[in-house]
């Protein structure tokens, strides 16, 4: 895993001392405050992008997903009920958008992609996207989708198991179980490199 880069701890987004709290911005935005909505998006765009990129491993996809989420937030912002932290809630939406994007791209884009490859018109992968390469080289890429999204939320964004369970719509014990499994798989890959 030489290429993989050490995880930078999730920046604690939210209210720095001099800043307006997320929750306040949300309520303003849902009352139609354009500036509040904009600053909310600006504040959390990086978070959305990071989660989307870790889930998909593609910058283009991550950008698409983020745009979808931003647009979706216009409608959804009013339905934030404050039961969870805003970022947790937001990550849930990003995660669902990732699924949605994946589903759409599986049907249409991939078909198009295959066709362009068949026709020989596709651009050759130039290998310049180093981030793409690092993603592909990381353990993350090899995890199954449920495990991957769990680890992105827990290890990547620092969500507690309970919060991640909320986002993923599963029991908290499932999250813990998945993390154990991730740990096991990560450990195994190392331990059995030269066995058998």
């Amino acid at each position: 895993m030489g290429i993989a880069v050490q995880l930078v701890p999730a920046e604690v987004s939210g209210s720095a001392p001099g800043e307006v709290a997320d929750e306040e911005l949300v309520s303003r935005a849902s009352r139609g405050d354009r500036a509040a909505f904009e600053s909310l998006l600006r504040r959390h765009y990086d978070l959305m992008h990071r989660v989307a990129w870790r889930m998909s491993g593609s910058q283009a996809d991550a950008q698409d997903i983020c745009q979808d989420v931003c647009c979706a937030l216009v409608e959804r912002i009013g339905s934030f009920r404050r039961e969870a932290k805003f970022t947790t809630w937001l990550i849930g939406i990003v995660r669902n958008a990732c699924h949605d994007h994946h589903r759409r791209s599986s049907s249409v884009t991939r078909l198009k992609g295959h066709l362009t490859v068949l026709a020989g018109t596709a651009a050759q992968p130039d290998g310049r996207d180093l981030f793409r390469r690092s993603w592909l080289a990381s353990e993350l890429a090899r995890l199954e989708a449920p495990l991957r999204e769990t680890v992105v939320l827990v290890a990547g964004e620092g969500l507690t198991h309970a919060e991640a369970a909320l986002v993923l719509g599963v029991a908290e014990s499932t999250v813990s179980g998945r993390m154990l499994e991730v740990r096991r798989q990560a450990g195994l890959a190392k331990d059995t490199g030269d066995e058998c």
Partner: protein
Amino acid sequence: MSADHDDIMRLPEAPTPAPDAREHALQQALSRFDNENLGEPQGLPGEIRLIERTAAPVQPSRERPVMNRTRYLIAASLACILAGSGTALHLGHWPEPQRAAAPLERQMASNEVIQAPVPEAKKEAESQIQSQVPVEQRNDTPAPAAAIAVPPVAATPSVAATSAPAASPSTSPPARPEIKDRLGVLAPSYMPAAPPPPAANEMMRKLAPQSPAPVRSASRSDSGLARAQQAAPARQLAAGEFGGGAQRERGPVVVEPVGRDKFANAPENPFKIVRDAPVSTFSIDVDTASYSFMRASLNRNVLPQPAAVRTEELINYFPYAYEAPATASEPFRTNVAVFPNPWSEGRKIVRIGIKGYALQQANRPRANLVFLIDTSGSMDAPNRLPLVKHSLAILLTQLQPDDRVAIVTYAGNAGTALEPTAASEKSKILATIERLEAGGSTAGAEGIRQAYVLAEQNFDTNGVNRVMLATDGDFNVGITSTEELKGFIERQRGKGIFLSVLGFGMGNHNDALAQALAQNGNGVAVHIDTINEARKVLVEEASSTLFPIGKDVKIQVEFNPATVSEYRLIGYETRLLNRDDFTNDKVDAGDVGSGQSVTALYDIVPVGGPLVVDDLRYGQQAPAAANASATGEYAFIKIRYKLPKSDQSVLISTSVDRAAEHARFEDAPLDARFATGVAAFGEILRGGKHTGKFGFDDVLKIATAARGDDAYGYRSEFLQLVRAAKTASAMRSQRP
């Protein structure tokens, strides 16, 4: 990779988002935000579907939506063919928002009757609808309940639309004439509207006031319903009540739960220095659940989790041909062997084999059995309830005519499926078993109470009274406190009613709870993964599963410091006892069934051998052998047991001396060698901390040579499992 446990894995660093993409997304969102807050009549731009679906939590099984859409598409194309090419043309004219709000596929799919006659197109009607739509669009109130209740029926467009634009939604729709259904089949939004036959037309005029906002309901009722459904989980997402998966129908594929298994286990026993701790005490363990679980896992080409492997259960899975005790008065006989350790030069293995007295069929006590069967929804899988049914039917063949059987099921609330019935009434029992069905949640505690009540009603003072619990261990309703359950089972054990646990299924098997319950209930915990396993446990070993000959069997081994410097008990980590527990009859321990054999292996370092634990610099020097007469002995074994009806323990003891020693591993008894192979296998699966370079191939070599008679093929199966483990681990290391 990092070995650090806190740092699970290094996540790749995310790239900085491209500024222009960010700006673009923000501008998009903001312009939409402006539109939204201006309350523009064109409402929501094209991608409302995305938003809706984004908001809905994606259920765990992802094949569902794909399936659905495929179905819709098929339905849509079918309808299109029937409706003719005009449909497609017409679709092109339909206002964009309307289509987006109510996806074509959904509407088509909702109308299941497609064979309705396609009437001639009528221009006026069409234009009416067209003009109606924007109005409906504007007052975008939630679809009225009545419209949802009658999805496609309200689809009669032209008449109803014109006559009742502001109908009251509270009126419940009356039964509609059939003709309306027929017409409703081809919803107006994508069909040139049909002129209703005069009679129907008249009728509908009358009914019209009661049909709420017809065009709306026609084009949107279905989507409205879909919306309502989607909106609910969406709200849940916001409200923090995630997991709306329950309301979705289940896919045809049975998905095994993953990663919810719970195991009882502890790390491998370490080496102990004889001078410091000469005595090793443990309780016997005749469970075999761990073996079946490991097999089920390996058969899926996955190495079992180390925590799932309990080495002693692997060893005790196999019958060993130890010399049997002659009489019932002394129900146990010990077989000891000492031989070189195959995985470590200079170390030795001490094998302690205990064989229980086998009851004769004739003087077998009467059995009073209560089957407590988990019929919760989680049991609804081929390897669960159906296997339980087969297993019970198999067990029935082993019962005597005067044995009694009762069946209690529990799912949501517990119920008695079969009152205590003599085993001679086979057909009645079998019919009851056949009728069992899975569904609902699990109230394990409630069911256990009821089962014990039945067992008590029918208590047989001279017989064996046993509750047999068949479950996947997913107790999720009722008393979930394991301690409370354990206490309850313990008190029942005091009354003479024992408990055995038959575990089924994988993925959410609560092995830890099954173990705890069975240990407290003086019974075995077995895991039944195949019909063959059911046969082994319930037929070939039926008498040992059902009829105990000794309870609270404890073993205490005292090593001789003059001959042994270090020792390690292989397995039995969950069964270790304190030194003083041995003579304390209040301390519960494992039980041995009729004819059962139990094997324990010690990995010892003889004096002068390669020490595992370093000597202390400041420790005292080894005292000279205290007892010159005992220098020849390796250890002294004491076994305490109670007869099933007794509370007084009896002591058997035997010494391990040079007479039991075999100079070469190859000369050791067949069973001892095989058990060693199994032990090595278990240790390797658990991480191989003490087995050094010993690999699966070495296990194969030992076990193949020691296969012996193998009447039931268990040992051959073991060889297959070792090979499977070899492939599974090779695959694992091949991963890119």
